[in-house]
């Protein structure tokens, strides 16, 4: 065992071993400007403060709070208990090193709030207009809480609106073969589901065309920022592009002559930041998942010569595949 540790580790192994702590030192990644807090953590922090503020209000003035949401101030005790719960969630979020537990407690609290509001609609003297507005506000907060809790749990770390994505897969081919295939960017649409074409325009530049949301086409120009033969290719979209996009692929011989470790790292700027990315994941459009599946298809092409598909096979229904289960496979 000690001999194995004494062997020089591959570059990616070293990087994994420190839990990604030196990620900021990677040459292709701009240093983040604003210290340690990610977008997810900041959002959680804001929601935590909001929780405490709302809780204090409920605790101090249950009557006013009741009138504000359109119910008669009959239950000051209940409102105060809800306030205490808000404060507890808020403190949980602000004091824990991992705020996800506190965030999930807010999600649970939102469910309770929405339940109480639904019950309030049945009360005889309720102000329906105010109740509806309060319910809409609570539903909005619930959505924010859920997305924030989900992104924290998934370990997403968005900085300056940029989300890093990493995927690794071992492929049964040599680094030379894999580098050569990838370096010809016009091959990429064969296994990257959302890409339509990549044209090399010379001088390390290329034009990328991809399918966007709702049948649109997105185009951008990219340049190679680092190119080490059989080892690494890094690229990013040039300034002025609609899409902020940067990526790097590394090829490292696997121990024991068992193919090549291929690692893709992408920097991606999701619309609406981490909330947009969280929402997209609900519809099977999680960019991290898409990168992993693209890499898997790259492996299929390099090992078998093609991407295996079920599109076009027979089935006893109108669609030959299942959008629910097979949809993600097709990007």
């Amino acid at each position, binding site marked *: 065992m000690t001999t194995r540790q004494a062997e020089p580790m591959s570059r990616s192994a070293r990087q994994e071993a420190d839990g990604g702590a030196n990620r900021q030192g990677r040459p292709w990644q701009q240093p983040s400007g604003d210290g340690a807090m990610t977008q997810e953590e900041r959002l959680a922090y804001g929601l935590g403060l909001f929780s405490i503020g709302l809780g204090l209000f409920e605790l101090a003035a249950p009557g006013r709070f009741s009138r504000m949401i359109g119910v008669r101030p009959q239950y000051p005790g209940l409102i105060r208990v809800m306030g205490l719960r808000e404060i507890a969630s808020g403190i949980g979020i602000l004091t824990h090193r991992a705020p996800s537990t506190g965030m999930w407690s807010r999600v649970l609290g939102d469910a309770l709030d929405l339940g109480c509001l639904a019950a309030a609609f049945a009360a005889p003297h309720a102000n329906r207009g105010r109740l509806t507005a309060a319910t809409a506000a609570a539903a909005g907060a619930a959505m924010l809480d859920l997305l924030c809790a989900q992104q924290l749990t998934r370990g997403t770390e968005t900085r300056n609106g940029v989300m890093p994505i990493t995927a690794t897969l071992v492929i049964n081919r040599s680094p030379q073969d894999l580098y050569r295939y990838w370096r010809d960017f016009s091959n990429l649409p064969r296994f990257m589901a959302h890409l339509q074409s990549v044209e090399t325009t010379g001088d390390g530049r290329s034009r990328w065309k991809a399918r966007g949301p709702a049948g649109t086409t997105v185009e951008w120009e990219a340049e190679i920022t680092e190119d080490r033969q059989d080892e690494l290719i890094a690229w990013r979209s040039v300034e002025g592009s609609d899409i902020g996009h940067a990526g790097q692929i590394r090829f490292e011989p696997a121990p024991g002559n068992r193919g090549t470790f291929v690692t893709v790292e992408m920097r991606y700027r999701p619309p609406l930041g981490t909330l947009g990315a969280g929402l997209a994941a609900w519809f099977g459009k999680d960019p991290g*998942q898409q990168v992993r599946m693209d890499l898997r298809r790259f492996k299929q092409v390099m090992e*078998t*010569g093609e991407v*295996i598909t079920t599109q076009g096979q*027979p089935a*006893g229904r109108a669609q030959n595949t299942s959008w629910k*289960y097979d949809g993600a*496979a097709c990007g």
Partner: protein
Amino acid sequence: MKANCWYGKQDVRVVDVPDPKILNRHDAIVKVSSTAICGSDLHLYNDFVPAMEPGDIMGHEFMGEIVEVGPEVKRLRAGDRVVVAFPISCGKCFFCTQAMYSLCENSNPNAWMAEKLFGHSPAGIYGYSHLTGGFAGGQAEYVRVPFADHGTVKIENGFTDEQVLFLSDIFPTGYMAAENCYLAPGDTVAVWGCGPVGQFAIRSAFLLGAERVIAVDRAPERLAMAREGGADTIDYEHADVYDVLMQWTGGRGPDACIDAVGLESHMPGPLYYYDRVKQALMLESDRPIALRQAIMACRNGGTVSVPGVYGGFIDKMPMGAVMNKALTIKTGQTHVQRYFEPLLKRIAGGEIDPSFVVTHRLSLEEAPNGFQLFAGKMDGCIKVVMTP
């Protein structure tokens, strides 16, 4: 063409669907001559496997004649008679090159789903839910066979369909289960479940040198078939399985135990209802009753081999027994392609005639009836073979 499709719990129907086409360059199209219902199809039928979609064509045990091949198919041509392995295997990845075909890394386009459930994905499988790729299955007139060079064995002499059809799954599955027991001369093997896989496990254990096989079930016709195969039998409705096994092995326990039951096991007594309730409340997905018994009965240092299908999570797994008795657990979807040639030789040599297991011969149109018979163990049903 006609195909047997899944539409919901205990609802399969034979409907008209389009003919399959070549979709990948390594594909072939097989005109099915015989197809069977597998015990594992019953887990789909009873809705225990997630990610089924109404309209999915079922079936993964089939054989027939090649009618069309893709441009990259080298070993086969139209007119070849083949049996198809149930795991779809590329032949090129790390696992395929080591003959671990059911773990192929390239044949499941929905690998991400299986990764979420299992950590890693197994190979794609015909007609076996979208978790294993959502591939159209073999209970049909025609089937598309991906990576055809690596997923088929040519049948060149005059075997009947029923003699070779089960090379697609249950014969290699029973055989691998016995092989996984690392049998030494003189060994005693206990087999839970005398369905088709259990029957092949019993006979394979003898082929691989077991001295004695003890089979556990409750259906009289299945126990009778096990005795014809040379096994001693225990009817678990009328005897305590552990006690009898100890009496018959001098208190030491069987050298190896095979769980050929899987996730829908039964037993008399309240523990069965404990698992049924937990399953109904979704606190566990699988009922591991036979597995628990096998672990408790197995001799110290013995092997528990699990060809039975499990899909998710089990409860009250006696890990203390596994650890303190130094047991080995061996399991896995069958690496069918690995067994094609050796088992074909054993059939040719007259060591075994796999057709013994067939009890019902139906037309493909009667598939829903076949499922009913097999699932309900009605009319002495052990194995259904259908012809289009």
